[in-house]
């Protein structure tokens, strides 16, 4: 039914890759914003694994972002210094990282963040995946909010005043390029992985869970195992993004940077819904559009930006639920390789069988 058309998609992919490689040199002033764009795309893609493909709408995925950030920071600092001393001295003063120390710590920290988030996801999934529908959304939101409050009171990792990350050994120019390409690679890897994932049996299984969990279970899908695995994948990439983002910003603190539930945590949902949830390209398109519009208009809205965001969510959810890709697909199904007669004939064949 779905006739894949490899040529145009490949062309689009190559265009995006080239644009991503060229962008930091063409727009050097906007390098940080474009790095953020890749992070946003990663956010939307990882949210869609659960929200769109599996039908479990999490409002607390940002938890893994913050957890990854903190795990990475603790590993980076803890390898060479005492964490409590470092945080109580607000970094900087006692800590000088040699380039070797910095990059080793960063690499190990990122790996630890990714794996640590997977462990956390497995632990949490045993608790949270018994919750269905809106309870799951509220439960995950509660988890993220609780994490924020608890990290803010945990003195060992700096509490509410946060941790200053190790300073990048190099000039600002190479620093911004370094982090740009880290964000870029993380997002591209996520996209490739997710794309592969949706083409496997696993993708079909989580789609079955979305459509009807009980029937899927009756058909022999290990729903719990699949849900845990899907969430772990999401957490893995979010942990990496948290580690990279924390180092890119250079200072982490629980409320605004690590667990920004009402900014990034909601952006990822809004972006995916805008682009069209449950599609491969929806999150990418939604994130790109959202981020560009946001960056261009945000500063001119002067306090009205959050109202605009709230209205966007309401309008999106109430009037435009399929998102951009979903709308295009219903408007021009033939472009997606779905021919009406073929689809109808296919359905008839299924019914008669």
């Amino acid at each position, binding site marked *: 039914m779905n006739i894949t058309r490899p040529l145009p998609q490949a062309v689009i992919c190559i265009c995006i890759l080239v644009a991503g490689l060229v962008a930091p040199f063409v727009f050097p002033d906007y390098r940080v914003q474009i790095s953020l764009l890749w992070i946003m795309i990663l956010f939307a893609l990882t949210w869609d694994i659960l929200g769109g493909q599996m039908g479990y709408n999490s409002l607390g995925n940002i938890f893994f972002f913050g957890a990854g950030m903190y795990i990475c920071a603790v590993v980076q600092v803890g390898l060479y210094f005492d964490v409590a001393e470092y945080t109580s001295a607000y970094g900087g003063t006692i800590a000088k990282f040699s380039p070797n120390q910095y990059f080793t710590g960063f690499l190990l920290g990122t790996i630890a963040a990714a794996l640590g988030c997977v462990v956390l996801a497995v632990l949490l999934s045993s608790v949270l995946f018994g919750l269905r*529908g809106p309870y799951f959304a*509220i439960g995950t939101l509660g988890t993220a909010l609780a994490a924020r409050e608890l990290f803010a009171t945990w003195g060992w990792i700096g509490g509410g005043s946060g941790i200053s990350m190790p300073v990048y050994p190099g000039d600002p120019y190479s620093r911004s390029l370094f982090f740009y390409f880290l964000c870029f690679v993380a997002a591209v890897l996520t996209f490739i992985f997710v794309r592969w994932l949706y083409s496997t049996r696993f993708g079909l299984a989580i789609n079955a869970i979305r459509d009807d969990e009980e029937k899927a279970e009756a058909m022999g899908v290990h729903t719990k195992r699949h849900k845990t695995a899907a969430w772990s994948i999401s957490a893995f990439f979010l942990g990496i993004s948290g580690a990279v983002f924390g180092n890119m910003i250079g200072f982490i603190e629980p409320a605004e940077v690590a667990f920004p539930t009402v900014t990034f945590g909601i952006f990822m949902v809004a972006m995916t819904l805008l682009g069209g949830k449950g599609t491969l390209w929806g999150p990418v398109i939604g994130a790109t559009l959202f981020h560009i519009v946001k960056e261009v208009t945000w500063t001119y809205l002067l306090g*009205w930006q959050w109202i605009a965001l709230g209205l966007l969510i309401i309008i999106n959810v109430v009037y435009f639920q399929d998102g951009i890709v979903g709308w295009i697909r219903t408007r021009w199904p033939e472009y997606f390789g779905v021919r009406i007669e073929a689809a109808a004939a296919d359905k008839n064949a299924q019914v008669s069988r």
Partner: protein
Amino acid sequence: MFVFQSFVSAMLDNIAVLKVAPIFNVQLVLDGLFIGAIFALAAYGLALVWGVMNVKNLSQGEFVIMGGYFAHVFAQNDIHPIFALIPATIMMFGFGWITYHLIIKRVIERDLFTSLLATFGLALVIQQALNLVFGPDVQTAESGFETRFIFDGLVTVADVKLISFALCVVLATIVIIFMKKSRMGQAIRATAQDARAARVMGIDTDRVYAFTFSLNAAICGAAGVLISMIWVIQPFYGIPHSIRAFVIVTAAGFGNLPGVILAAFGLGVAEQYSGFVMGAEFQQATVVSLLVAVLVWRQIQLSRHRQVVK
């Protein structure tokens, strides 16, 4: 790890204080009950909307805060904030009506996450609108009532807290009698039981939904006036109130009014104790952790139920 130890020892010290001077317990329980009564109002509104139209209203706390700002405006214009109860209730009823027709009406039939997200968006809009109008300062509506001292001045009871408690009881009674006796109350209960059957019987369910949502907003508005008199309000304090309402309703189950009241009192007292024992910065963490705990507990119950079904 040293910090953690000092934290635990501080906690033990505070518990020791409670043991040495049990009179502090009276203070904590009283404050918990006074504040819990108001939580019960907001939670009842949520349970109403949840039970009747199956919409989980995440902007519940924002409705409460909106009501609170009525009292704030009254107090600023040298009118006693308690008079704000009437306009706050009426205006919030109207606001609820408009909100229902603009947003909620269109998400009732959709899946549950839709209504959750739509009301979340609404919550963002209200928060920021309040922030733009009133600024981000923490406000309280000065009521000018006296404070009583009992037990040799060890326990303080502000008169305004007693008055707000009494008003809570009065409001709750009015709502309960309304639901039991009035035509609309009966229609609401019929719709909650079976919306389709109610439609067959000639009940205009759309009107019932609109009325239920507006009633909820009105109840929240009244609760907000009381909150701003005995506690504090701020544009972004709505989320904790929403979470409290969710904790209470999830713990009690909707349609269980005594349960809602008990859970609300329990939450109020628990918050006061955690604030005293662990420090005020843990108060919010307690609410959120309780939410997760209640959800987990509910799930354990459900899984036990499932095993029985097997």
